[in-house]
Every structure is written in structure tokens, then in C-alpha cells.
């Protein structure tokens, strides 16, 4: 009887090695490794910036204003928070998929780390933390650029940073978990294929109302909830729905983190 019970409910849901003590050591390693590759880090900032510039120059004039929570805002002020959210997503996914796959399967950095007191959970949390940190760096710079362009509407906009951290956490966890299932580089195509529609159809470029009766599909996109959070922060207009969006992202992160930690355990401790 008790053995059946143990089968259904594993004694330790997260596995015996779910001990998070030294994730910062992984981050320290990356800080040293990236000293020689700072150009890669800097370049990640430019992509959303170029998007913003092109939106401002091109679409802004065509579209005019968009209604956000009952007030009219210029199109670039509408799009900028969404680009900020998207760049938080892209940064997190980039770091937690391609880079992790390389370290896991080809550079085999984690194998070396696990021969030390580091645990698989340290590796997972460290990598996700690193992706988050890098995402924050971009978010801060992006917010600075928005402020410089006069697209920031109030001090509330600072809350867009924790919102981006939450987006980073969600997508880094999902990305890491997904990477543990990848067989090789060809599977990276799936990541690109999956993130593109998220970027396009998360009420990024149009308000959700313009999707009409298809709006519920947009709601399924995790990025949509992130965009809504950043937009609310930037506009300084808060409603109960913010809690709902945050809860969706938190729940997704939690599930993905558990999957990530368990998978990395089985992959590395054969």
C-alpha cells in the first residue's frame, strides 16, 4: 500500500538534489566568460531599439493615437512598452535555449560543475537567473531610451522593470525546460518558430480589442500578459487585471522551473 502511495506521490517532488545553494557561482562564471564577449551583450540591446525607431518614424504618423484604458496615447507610446516586454522575452529565451544547449551538450560545462558541490538545481537556477539579469540590463536601457524619447508617462513606469523581470523569469524557465528536451541544434528552429507568433500576436502592435472575437487566443500567449503588465506600468493606470496577468506569469514560471530542475537532474546525473 505504502509503495503504491510512494509511486503516486514521490517523496521529494523536486528530486533529491533540489538544493539551491550556489546558483550565483554559475552567474560568476558567465560574468568572467562574457568579459571577452561584451559585444554580444551590447548588441542584444539594439534590436528592440531599432524596432522602436522604425515604429516611431514609420507607423507613428500613419496610425496616430491608440486608446489605452480609456485614454488616447500616441502610437509609439503604445508600442514601446510592448517592445520592452518582447525584448525581455527574447533576451530570456535567447540565453536559456541556444546558450544553454551549447553548454549542456557541446561545451559540457555543467558536467564539470556537477563534480563539485554544485547541484543540478544550482545550474538551472543560475542559468535562469543569468538570463533574467541580462534581460534586466536591456530593460533598464530600453526604459532609458523611452524616457529620452518622451514615451514614459509617469514614475510608475519604473514598475515596468519588475514586470520585465517577471517576463524574463517566465520565458527563461520555459526556455530552459524546453532545452532539456532538445536533441540538437535543429530543434532550435522550433524556438524561433514559436517565439515569432508570440511577438506578433500578443497585442504587441494592436490593442487586444482589434482582434475582435479572436481575442481569447491572444490571452493564451504568455507574452500578452507581460505586455499588459508593462503597458499598465508605463501608463500608470492600474486595475485588478494586473494581478491576474502577474498570476499567470508566476504560475507558468513555477511549473516551468520545476520541470527544468527535474529534467536537468535526469539529464546530468545518469
Amino acid at each position, binding site marked *: 500500500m505504502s509503495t503504491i502511495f510512494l509511486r503516486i506521490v514521490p517523496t521529494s517532488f523536486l528530486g*533529491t*538534489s533540489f*538544493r539551491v*545553494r*550556489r546558483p550565483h*557561482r554559475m552567474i*560568476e*562564471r558567465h560574468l*568572467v*566568460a562574457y568579459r*571577452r564577449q561584451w559585444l554580444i551583450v551590447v548588441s542584444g540591446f539594439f534590436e528592440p531599439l531599432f524596432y522602436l525607431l522604425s515604429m516611431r518614424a514609420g507607423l507613428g504618423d500613419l496610425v496616430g493615437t491608440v486608446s489605452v484604458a480609456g485614454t488616447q496615447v500616441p502610437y509609439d507610446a503604445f508600442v514601446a512598452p510592448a517592445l520592452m516586454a518582447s525584448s525581455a522575452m527574447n533576451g530570456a529565451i535567447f540565453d536559456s535555449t541556444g546558450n544553454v544547449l551549447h553548454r549542456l551538450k557541446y*561545451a*559540457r*560545462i555543467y*558536467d*564539470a*560543475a*556537477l*563534480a*563539485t*558541490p*554544485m*547541484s543540478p538545481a544550482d545550474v538551472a537556477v543560475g542559468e535562469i537567473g543569468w538570463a533574467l539579469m541580462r534581460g534586466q540590463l536591456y530593460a533598464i536601457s530600453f526604459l532609458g531610451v523611452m524616457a529620452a524619447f518622451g514615451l514614459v508617462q509617469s514614475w510608475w513606469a519604473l514598475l515596468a522593470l519588475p514586470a520585465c523581470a517577471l517576463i524574463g523569469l517566465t520565458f527563461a524557465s520555459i526556455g530552459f525546460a524546453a532545452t532539456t528536451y532538445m536533441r540538437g541544434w535543429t530543434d532550435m528552429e522550433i524556438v524561433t518558430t514559436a517565439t515569432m507568433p508570440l511577438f506578433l500576436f500578443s497585442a504587441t502592435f494592436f490593442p487586444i480589442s482589434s482582434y475582435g472575437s479572436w481575442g481569447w487566443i491572444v490571452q493564451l500567449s504568455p507574452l500578452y500578459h507581460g505586455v499588459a503588465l508593462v503597458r499598465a506600468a508605463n501608463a500608470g493606470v492600474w486595475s485588478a487585471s494586473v494581478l491576474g496577468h502577474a498570476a499567470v506569469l508566476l504560475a507558468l514560471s513555477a511549473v516551468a522551473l520545476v520541470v527544468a530542475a527535474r529534467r536537468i537532474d535526469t539529464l*546530468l*546525473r*545518469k
Partner: protein
Amino acid sequence: MPEPLIVASQLVKRFGDFTAVGPIDVEVQPGEVFGFLGPNGAGKSSTMRMIACVSPITSGSLRLFGLDPATHGPQIRARIGVVPQLDTLDTELSVQENLWLYGRFFDLPRAEAKRRATELLEFAQLTDRADSVVDNLSGGMKRRLSIARSLINRPELLLLDEPTTGLDPQARHVLWDRLYRLKQEGVTQVLTTHYMDEAEQLCDRLVVMDQGLIVAEGSPRSLIDQYATREVLELRFPAGTNEAAAPQVEGIGERQELLPDRILVYAHDGEAALAATHARGLEPESALVRRSSLEDVFLLLTGRTLVD
């Protein structure tokens, strides 16, 4: 008698239905250099990975320093150094960074990690390559760096999986010398090897593994005494005639082995065996008398040569 540092009893490792190791019983005493010897696929690395607490055991029990890897993995790993069969150096870091950042995984303060890194560079004769990218090192240098890295936490137990495979003879002797120095400092070592001379050189005690099981155990000398003779006469007959010659050599030594390219005659006195061969009117193309080695032990135990 001190408490053994490693105790494995009825230790088993399975991958799916396939049993890679065991059941095996092993005890390693503090200060000892212990070897796992065996051919490809014998289960040496699988055993080493269990001892290194990076691979969960399937059944049986394993204790290091009296601790259970399943519950005290990090505490045990803090006290051991691991040189895996294939180098797992960080190719995005310099030689020096590989050392001190690894020390950080053991919670060494940064200054201490860097101090030890400098020392270990000296030990591995890599000081002038401190800032090189790892990719640019030769195979032997990488191996030395791996060994240096495994020492960053001043381990009480060092696990070396085929430490000298792929090294030229000179590099191998340098490494043996380093390992001998560590032994004198009291570092317990467990190593695997394909090479009988290495085992003979380094190990106080060893087990011969074959197909996941231990087939013999003892000191190198005692294994040779027990499973071989003092000397071996190697006879090579013209290509293709070895097999035909084999029956005619019968009885000269205590036993003999027919290999594709030669016949090994095990005898206490090799020269006498050679004289007896000639007396029978046999004319080998070449004949060589040598001391028997662990290689012969392995051959006699398993019927196969070690390095194919």
C-alpha cells in the same frame, strides 16, 4: 585499521535493462592508490561516476567518508577531486580562469582560489600558458590542466579516469611523477586504466574488471604471482603459421596463449623455454623473453588482450 574511505557493497549500476556494473564489492583505505583495470566497456567509468557522486547507484550501497552519496552528495564532492575520462574544461575561459572559477564552485574565497590557481599552474607546468585559451592547448596540456583543476579544493580523494590515455610516453612519466607526489602527501587515489604498466607503476592495490564484474583483486605483484608466471616467452612465427605451430610448443611452459600474431609461453625461466623451443626444432621468426605483467594477468583471466 582506519575506517575505509570508500566502501561499496553489492554495488550495481543499470542503464535500462543493461547492467553496466556489478554487483561489486570494493573497499579503499585512506592513503591508498587503488586501480580499476579492464577493457573497453568493463564498467570502469560507470563505477567512477558513482563514486564521484554524479551518477546515482541502482542498488547496493556506497559510502564515502562514511557518508551516503544519495543524501550527502555536495558534502562528499566538496572533499574529492575528479578527472573525468574526457576533459570537461571550459573552452570559453582561459587556463587560469578554468582553475580559479572552478575553485569558486567549492566556495573558496576569490583571493584564495586565485592563489591556488597560481600554485597549480606551476604544478602542471602551465604557468607560461596561464592566459591561453583552452582550445589552443595540446592534448597533454589539457590533461594536465584537468588534473590541476581537480586539485583546486585540496581533495582528500582523487578520482582519475584514464589519466594518461592519449599522452606521449614523456608526458605520461611527468604525470606519474605528479601522482606519486600526491600519494606521498597522503592523497588517496582511485584510478582507472587500460595500461598494465600504469597500474603496476601507480597502484598499491587493484581490481580487474570485466563485463561489469570484478574478476581478480590484489596488489599488482600478487596478481602477477597468482595468475601468471615469472617470465613470458613471446614467439612469432611467419605470418599465418602461428596456429599450426601452437600445438608443437605445448608443454614447454606452464601454459600458453595463442594470439593472432604471436604465441605466449608462460614459464618461470623464459630462456630455458626458448632453448626447449629450439630443441624441438622450431624456428620462430622472432623470440622475446620478458617479465610477465598485468597484461598477462588480464589475458589469462579473460582470454582477451587488453588494448585491441
